[in-house]
C-alpha cells in the first residue's frame, strides 16, 4: 500500500536533513562506494557511509555521535562520492547540513576549530571588503587559530612573485554586502 505523499518528520535529525537538503537518508543502502573513493576516507573517524548509517536509525545518541565526529569536518566537498553514488545521494550536501547542526548544538569536534576559523575568517573578509583578501584571511586565521608561525616563510616568497597584494580590493557597494550577510547569516 502506498503511504501517500511523503512529509519528512521534522522531529528527527534525518527528517530535518531531508527537509533542508532534499536528501533522503533511507536511499543509502550502505554499499560503501563513498568511503571507497573518498580522498580523506582513511583520515575520517566516521567515513561517509558510517555517517549515513548512524543517522538512518534515528537514535539521538547515534545522531550525536555523528555530530561530534571529526570526519564531518574533513569532507572536502570534492563530490567524488556523489558523482559515483549508485543511489545518487548528494552526500556533501548532508555533510554541510550536519556541520551546521553540530555548531548549533555546540558539540562540534574540537579539531573543527581550525577549519572553522578559516571559514569564518574567509567570510569576514568578504563581508567587509566584498572580495577575499588573502593576506587578511591568513592573518585573521592565524590570530583565530593561534598558528602564528605556520607558513610565515611562504609570505615573502609570494610577495616577491607578486602574488600577495598588501591592500585589500574593496568593492564599491560594501553596504550592499553588509545587507547580504545580515539577511542570510543573520537568520542562522
Amino acid at each position, binding site marked *: 500500500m502506498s503511504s501517500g505523499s511523503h512529509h519528512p518528520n521534522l522531529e528527527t535529525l534525518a527528517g530535518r536533513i531531508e527537509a533542508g537538503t532534499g536528501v533522503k537518508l533511507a536511499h543509502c543502502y550502505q554499499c560503501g562506494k563513498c568511503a571507497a573513493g573518498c580522498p580523506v576516507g582513511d583520515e575520517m573517524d566516521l567515513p561517509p557511509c558510517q555517517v549515513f548509517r548512524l543517522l538512518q536509525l534515528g537514535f539521538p545518541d547515534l545522531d550525536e555521535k555523528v555530530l561530534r565526529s571529526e570526519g564531518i569536518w574533513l569532507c572536502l566537498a570534492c563530490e567524488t562520492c556523489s558523482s559515483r553514488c*549508485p543511489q545518487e545521494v548528494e552526500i556533501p550536501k548532508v555533510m554541510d547540513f550536519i556541520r551546521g547542526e553540530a555548531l548549533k548544538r555546540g558539540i562540534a569536534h574540537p579539531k573543527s576549530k581550525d577549519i572553522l576559523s578559516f571559514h569564518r575568517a574567509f567570510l569576514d573578509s568578504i563581508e567587509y571588503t566584498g572580495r577575499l583578501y588573502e593576506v587578511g584571511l591568513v592573518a585573521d586565521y592565524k590570530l583565530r587559530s593561534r598558528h602564528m608561525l605556520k607558513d610565515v616563510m611562504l609570505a615573502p616568497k609570494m610577495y616577491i612573485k607578486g602574488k600577495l597584494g598588501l591592500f585589500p580590493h574593496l568593492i564599491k557597494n560594501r553596504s550592499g554586502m553588509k545587507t547580504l550577510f545580515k539577511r542570510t547569516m543573520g537568520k542562522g
Partner: protein
Amino acid sequence: MSRIGVFTCHCGENIGATVDCAKVAEMCKHVPGVAHSVDYKYMCSDPGQRMMQEAIKEHNLDGVVVAACSPRMHEPTFRRAVSNAGVNPYMCEMANLREHCSWVHEKNDATTQKAADLIRVLVEKIKHNTPLYPIKVPVTKTAMVVGGGVAGIQVALDIANGGHKVILVEKSPSIGGHMSQLSETFPTLDCSQCILTPRMVEAAQHPNITLMTYSEVEKVDGFIGNFKVTVRKKARKLDEKLCTGCGLCIQKCPNKKISDEFNEGLGTRTAIYVPFPQAVPNRPVIDTLNCTFYKTGKCKVCEKVCPTNAIRFEQEDELVTIDIGAIVLATGFKLMKTEAFPEYGYGKHKDIIDGMQFERLASASGPTAGVMKRPSDGKEPETVVFIACSGSRDRSKGVPYCSKVCCMYTAKHAMLYKHKVHSGKAYVFYMDIRAAGKDYDEFVRRAIEEDDVKYIRGRVSKIYEEDGKLIVKGADTLMGGEPVEIKADMVVLATAVQSNDRSEELAQTLHVSYDTYGFFAEAHPKLRPVETNTGGIFLAGACQAPRDIPESVAQASAAASKVLGLFSQDQLTREPIVAVVNRQAGPTYSYCVGCFLCQTACPYQAIEQEQILARNGEVIKTIARINPGLCQGCGTCVATCRTKAIDLQGFSNEQLYAEIMTL
C-alpha cells in the same frame, strides 16, 4: 413480462453476518419482473445450485440474479448451473453483495438496503439482456518460438513432443543462445555445452520442429489461433541444401582477424564462419560487412574451394509468411558493457572484463582453451577481483533492479578461477548475497569456506592501472567503511542483465506490453506469469526479467503447456463479450459514418474496415467491423464512437442506462 429469479447467498458469515439476507430476499419479491426470490446459506454448494435449477423449472424463470460474491469467483459456476437448467448462461448475472457490500460496510439497515438495491439494478439489466452464444475461432496448430536459447529450445521441444508443429526462429546463425557460451553452470558445475548440445541436436532433428536460424520476425498480423507471421530469412550467401558443413571455406578464408561475437571479442573468426564448433545447424554464413569480396569485389576464395559449389554471393534476404496459432517469445537478454562504467575506465582496460567474457576464458572451447590467461598479455592472473552488482541496483546507471543471476555466477566464477589457478587469490566485492534457490546458498558457502574466496562487503569506487596491475579501490562496510585497495591482475564485472537490443521494437510489432526497462510484461505478475496481454502470445526466459537456467526452462515448459492447452481444441471458444457495430437495412445500413476514430483508439487492432457493396459491386458505404477474435471487450471504441454505432455485447448502452435509471 420477465420471469426473473433472485437467489441471495449468505456466504456463511461473510454476507449473512452483515446483511439481513432473509429481508433482502423478501424485499426482492416485490421488484417488478421478479417471479421468485429466496435466500440460502451457500448458494455455490451442490444443494444451492440444485435448488436454483429446480426453481428455474418450477417457476419457468427466464433470467437469474445470484446475489453473492464477486463474479470473478463464481460467475462461471452459476452460469453453468443456469445453462444446465436450460436457460442461456448470459441471462444469469451476479450482484456482488460481499466485496461491494458486506465486507465494506457495518451491519445496519442501510447496508441491507444497499444489498437489495444492487440486486434491483441487475434485475433491470437482465430485462434488457439477450441470449449470447460463445464465439468460435479456428486454431492453426503450429506454434512459433522466437529465440533459440535454452528457453526457446525447451518450449519448442515440449510443444513438438506434444504432437504439434513448431517453427523456431533464431536471429543468429546457430541456436543455443547464451547458454552455449557458458563454461560451467551453477550450482552443480556441470558443463554447459555438455547438457545443452543434446537438446540443440534434438530440436534440429525433431520431425515437428522447423529451424529458421539467421532469421528475424518482421511482421505479425491476425489474432490468437490465427496469426500470420512474416519472417525475414537473412541471406547466408550459400545454398544450405548443397552445403555439407565440411568447413573448408572457413579454413581457407583469408580474412581471419574479425572480432568473434561468440567469444565476446576475446578471439577472432573468419568472414565466412560458424559461430562455434557445435553450432546447429552446422552451416556457415558470410559476414558481408567484413567479407573482402563485398568490400573490394575481389577474393571469392570460399567459392573456389567449396567442393559442392554451395556459395551464392548474389543470394538475397527472403521474406516468408507463415500461418501460426500461438507465439512464444524467448528472446533473452544482453549484458551491460564494461564501457558503461566511467569509474572503471570506460572499458579501456583490457583486463577488466564482463561475466560472459569470463565464461569464454574459462570455457574449454574458448579462446584460451579454458586456461586462465588475462586478455592483455596472456599471463596467468595471480589475483582476480570479481565485482557483483556492477550496474545492477544502480539507479545512476538506469538499472535499479537486481539482475538476479550475478550472485550465483560470481561465486561460480571465483570457484572456477580457484580450481584452475590453485595459488591464485580471488576477491568478491558484493552488497548482498542473493542465493535463494535450491542448493544455491550452499554453493556460495562452498566458494567461501572450501575454495577460500574472500568476500568483501562493499562497492568498488575506482579502478585504475599502475605498473601493470589494476588498482581496485573499494571499502569494507563490515569494517566500518575501511578503505580496501587490491592490486589485481584481472577484474571481472558482473554487469547488469538488460533487455535485449530491439526488444521494444519487437514488442510493438507483436502488440505486447513491456516495462520501463524493455522487458516483456506478463499478463499478471503472479497468476499469469507466462501469458502476455495479447491472446495467443506467451513468454519464456530472460526476455521477461532476469532469469537463470532452471527458471528459464521451467517457464519455457509452462509456456509450452499453455500452447498445448490452446492447441488441444479444434476451435477456440471465447466469451461473447465483444463489441459489435450496428447494422441495419438500407438506406442507412449502419449508424457508423466511417470516421474510424475507433480504429485508432482500439488497443488490440481489432477494428477493420468493411465495404458495403451494392449488387453491382459498387461500394455504397465503408464502415467499421470488429474482429471478434481480436476484440477483448474493453469498450474503448464504444466510448469513442460519435454516432453510438458500437455496442458492447452483455454491457450495451441500453443495459447500463437501465441499471443507472433504476437507482
